[in-house]
Structures are given as structure tokens and as C-alpha cells.
């Protein structure tokens, strides 16, 4: 019963049919993040455009459904957005994940990412959900540097 609240249909959907997966050229920065406790990995590339626009977020990786679906959702929410807006989404997502199930998700900001609300109750899985998102933040820092 509990599992159901973790494995939302939407997460399984993104896992089985990841959006925007694959590493693409050109890019401004590439980062590789690893979750040492489980071996989940993600390589993430960011291409920025004029006016702080995020032109492409491409990625590859391996890991559990949560980490892979989170990367797919991240791609959807950030590509075509702006650095500033996407950072707001990352912030909201991070707060949701670290909220131990106490934080109410804001669907307007988070979109499909609200499906991950259940993950927040599983401390060991929070890192999986955040892996791609932290990598994205890191890649942004490096591409602006």
C-alpha cells in the first residue's frame, strides 16, 4: 500500500519513457554526479542561450526509477525555461524532498514534479530524487563561471 504512494503512475511513466534522455551537443558545461551509497549516476549537460535562457538540458545515467524519472521530469521543466525560473523550481523541489513529508507541494511551480511528494517520506530515496537536480544546479554554476 505504501509503495503505491512512492511509485506514482507518473513516475513509472517517466521511468519507462524518459524525456530528452541522451547527451547532446553543443553544451556549456557537463557534470557527472554519483550517489555513492547506491551507485546511481548521472551525466548532465547544460546549454544556455541569450537572456538567461536554458536552451537544452541533456543527460544520461543509470539508476533506479526514482532517479531516472526525476532526471526526465527535470528535463521537461527546465528546457526552454530561464536560469532564474528553473532555479526557483529546483529550490521548491529540494525543499519538498527534504521536508520529510511535511511540506505541501505547489503544483503551479512544480508541475509533474509533484508526483515525487511521496518520496520525501523515504529518507534513503531522497538522494535518488535529488541526484539529477543537484547535478543541474552544479552544471548551471559551471556554465556561468
Amino acid at each position, binding site marked *: *500500500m505504501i*509503495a503505491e504512494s512512492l*511509485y506514482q503512475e507518473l513516475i513509472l511513466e517517466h521511468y519507462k519513457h524518459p524525456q530528452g534522455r541522451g547527451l547532446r551537443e553543443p553544451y556549456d558545461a557537463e557534470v557527472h554526479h554519483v550517489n555513492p551509497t547506491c*551507485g*546511481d549516476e548521472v551525466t548532465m549537460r547544460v546549454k544556455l542561450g541569450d537572456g538567461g535562457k536554458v536552451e537544452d538540458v541533456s543527460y544520461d545515467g543509470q*539508476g533506479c*526509477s526514482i532517479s531516472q524519472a526525476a532526471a526526465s521530469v527535470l528535463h521537461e521543466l527546465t528546457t526552454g525555461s530561464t536560469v532564474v525560473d528553473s532555479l526557483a523550481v529546483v529550490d521548491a523541489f529540494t525543499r519538498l524532498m527534504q521536508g520529510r513529508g511535511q511540506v505541501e507541494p505547489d503544483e503551479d511551480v512544480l508541475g509533474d514534479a509533484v508526483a515525487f511528494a511521496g518520496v520525501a517520506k523515504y529518507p534513503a530515496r531522497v538522494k*535518488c530524487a535529488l541526484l539529477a537536480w543537484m547535478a543541474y544546479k552544479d552544471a548551471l554554476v559551471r556554465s556561468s563561471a
Partner: protein
Amino acid sequence: MTESMFDVERIRKDFPILSRELPGGRPLVYLDSGNSSQKPAQVINTMRDHFEQHYSNVGRALHVLGTESTEAYEGARDKVAAFIGAPDRDEVIFTKNASEALNLVAYAFGNPTNTDERFRLGPGDEIVISEMEHHSNLVPWQFLAQRTGATLRWFPVTDEGRLDLSGLDELVTERTKIVSIVHQSNVLGTVNPVADVLARVRQVGALMMLDASQSVPHRAIDVAALGVDFVAFTGHKMVGPSGIGVLWGRRELLDAMPPFLGGGEMIEAVWMDHSTYAPVPHKFEAGTPPIVEAIGLGAAVDYLTGVGMEDIQRHEHDLTVYGLDALGEFPGLRIIGPTTAEERGGTLSFTFPGIHPHDVGQILDDRFGVAVRVGHHCARPLHLRFGIPATTRASFYLYNTTDEIDALVRGLHHVQKVFG
């Protein structure tokens, strides 16, 4: 099942946690003893009783409590020594876990204050481990190589998950100072052929250490019969408490090694500018030791001996046969490690194509109360060797049943339904 006095239902009653209910009223199916075992009431009560009636620091105090604590602590050493067939009870050194025991030996090499040839180490010298090592028998030797300039080499692993001895003579040579390998793999379940390796080690005059963290809990071990120089294991995997591990070493070597941690209890006499050291075991037990933990380990050893190590091994062998059968028939499942129960313990690691172990473990836990371990089990290089990031691992102990293996299999079917 083989005829024996072994009664798993009676044994289960000794372990309070096994009758605990998980959230949602699920019963607990604990298949993660390779990670850490549960504790019988006998161990828990021994520790509580010591705290409530006898506790004091050991070695240092002359009063009644000090005497009682010291006798219980040193009595635990006697029990552990007898349990592993140590020729001399002073060869049993209490550490905080197996990792400390392995590091202790690694730090004995290449210490500039050491004068014994066997523990000298520098460029040109070699350390040999294997590709199936737990990080605790891998990283300490990497450190040692980095500190001293010695070279780290390793046995490969075959596709069946056995130690590949085909290059033994080229790997273990006159340049080798120490060979340290796992006795039973915590991922593959493989029990390694100690004698074959040891013969070569003796030929070249090197030392040999065994990481017995996964063997001492599961089969009768006689360190003298094994014939190696050092053996490390850990209390929490053998129905003992956390916070206690053991290094056994041949007395003559322990005497020759430089001390590791400095502090109270490990000294003979101290001046401001130099010290002399106590004889083993105390030489390697700096500071207040894990007193009640050692006493708890003594109770664990009594418990295991009471049940009988032969019976435990037989029971686990039966479970392994049953488990290998059940998983072997499972569509799409790949066992990482030997697929027959020969020279193999009850640790079954496996993968499903396209389903990540995290997801397997989560569903098993959430829906079926089946506790398994998922990940690389602190043996990442072994997983790299098999080209996989992680496995799902079910590991058995004396209190597990075939019903629990059935529950695992039911859970796996559901996993396939969700992610298939």
C-alpha cells in the same frame, strides 16, 4: 531437510525483533543478515544485566565492580578464542569492527618505527588482494600502497564468481609481502580456497590475512587449521552487538608488529618522551575498550555454540539450495555468484534486466515486509567487474525459513508486474 535437533521456530523466539510488526501490520521477513544480524534475548539481556549490576572500567580498577567487569571482559576473550580455535587466548584482540582489525594490520606495514623485516614495505614490494573484496579489505591496502609506494595487485574473479587462481604464481611472488582476501564473499557467497592460496604464500615467504566477516558467523572456523596469519571478523554479523570486532593474529607476529593506536591500557610504562608497551592483546587495545560489547559478543558466541555451528551451517545450506532453486527458475533473474550450493554460503545476489535493485528492494519492503539489501554492498569493484551498478541481495541466517524465501519470491513477482 536433514534430520537434526535444529528447530528454527524455537530459535526465532529467541530474537525479539523477529516478532515485530512493521507499519501497516506486515510481518518482518529479515533477509539482510549479511549486512547485520539480529540479536537474541540472551545477548541483549547479558548486556543489560552487566550495565545494571556489574559495570565499571576494566583492567584499571581493583574494586568489586572493576573485578567483575574485568573478569567478564576477559572471559569474553576466552570464549571468542575457543570459538575460533585460537592457540593462545592473548591472540584475540578486540577492535570496534572488522574494518578496524583490517586497518590495524595494514598500518603495521611500512611504519618507519618498525624494525621487523616482514612488516617493512616500500616501492617494489607488493600487496595482493582480490577483486571480490569488501571495501574494508580494499581501501586500507590502497592507503598503505599510497603511503609507502608499494604496489597493490589483485586476484581476478571468474564469471561464475569464483576466485581466479589461474595466475596465482605470477600474482603472488617474492615481491609479495602480504595477501589479504575475503574468506566468504559478502556478495557472491563464494567460499574461497584458502589452502591453495596459502601454499603459494608460504612458498614466497609472505604473510596472509583472511577477512572472515562473513564466514565466522556461519560455519565452524578453526584459525589454527586454516593456517593463515591474521583473521578479522565482526560482532554484529554473528548475533553480537554493534561496536565490537576481532583481530586474531599469530602471537609471534602480533609481538613483532609496532603498536597502532596509542593510549591508556596499551602501555607498560610511559615517560614524557618515550613509552614501552604492554604485551598482546592489550598492546593493541588503546583506551577504554568496548567493554559491554565484548561481553555481549561472548554471549553471542555462547548462543551460537549452544545451537551448534554445524547445525547452523547445515540449515543455511538447506536454505541456500532452496533459494538457488527458487531464484534459478525465476524468469529473467540473473544470479551474481555460484549457482550451486557447493563452497558457497547463503548470500544470494541477483539482478533483473531493466529493473533497478533500489526499486526491487523498495517494493519488497513496502509491500511485503521483506528486508533485503540493494546496492553494491561495499564491493563496488566487484560490481564493476560484472558490468552492473548494483544488485539485490538476500542473505540468510540461522533464524530464516523457507517460508521467508517463498515470501521473497512472491514479492519479486509483484516487482516484475509493476516495472515489467
